């Protein structure tokens, strides 16, 4: 394995760790906003580290730029989405717990 491969390996593992953290947070955290926080970790850092790792493998600049674009877009979209979800949850319930009544149910 070349040094580049080692770098990919290490960065990929860190990315995977953040994905794991995001998932665990989503599953374990008590309220909506902390879950939202966990989610952004997976989105921003998890994917970011994986992409950074893959950058060591790409031969061409174009491919590297495309990868960075994908990450940038994901970052951008997820922060907007989280903003929208958060705002929605606030307007909906009026509290920061996010525990809106079970009225989605029926």
């Amino acid at each position, binding site marked *: *394995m070349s040094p580049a491969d080692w770098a990919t390996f290490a960065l990929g593992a860190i990315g995977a760790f953040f994905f794991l953290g*995001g*998932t665990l947070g*989503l599953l374990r955290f008590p309220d909506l906003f902390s879950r939202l926080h966990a989610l952004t970790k997976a989105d921003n850092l998890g994917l970011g580290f994986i992409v950074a790792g893959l950058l060591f493998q790409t031969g061409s600049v174009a491919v590297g730029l495309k990868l960075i674009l*994908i990450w940038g*877009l994901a970052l951008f979209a997820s922060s*907007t989405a989280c903003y929208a979800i958060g705002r929605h949850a606030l307007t909906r319930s009026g509290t920061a717990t996010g525990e809106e009544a079970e009225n989605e149910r029926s």
Partner: protein
Amino acid sequence: MGIFYIVMTLFLLANMAAAMARVFRGPTAADRLMTAQLFGTTGVGILVLLAEAVPQPALRDVALVFTLLAVLVVLAFTRGHTGQAEEARSRGNGGDA
């Protein structure tokens, strides 16, 4: 290196399967939507890894399209619901037919 990619994708897929539990539990629609968001990001991660592993450069385009369209669902959701809430608040029950 091939085995590294496949193990990574496997790990991400397992992650995705585990996150499904949040869709069950909810409790709010926003939680479920967040899970969908996480699914999307994980899927993009798998795609960029596969693009390197197979190798199939076109998969990066697939990932690009995914990230580009991911935000649509979230906005459609918040619009439908926020709109409803605001509407109910501002003008009671007026129909607009």
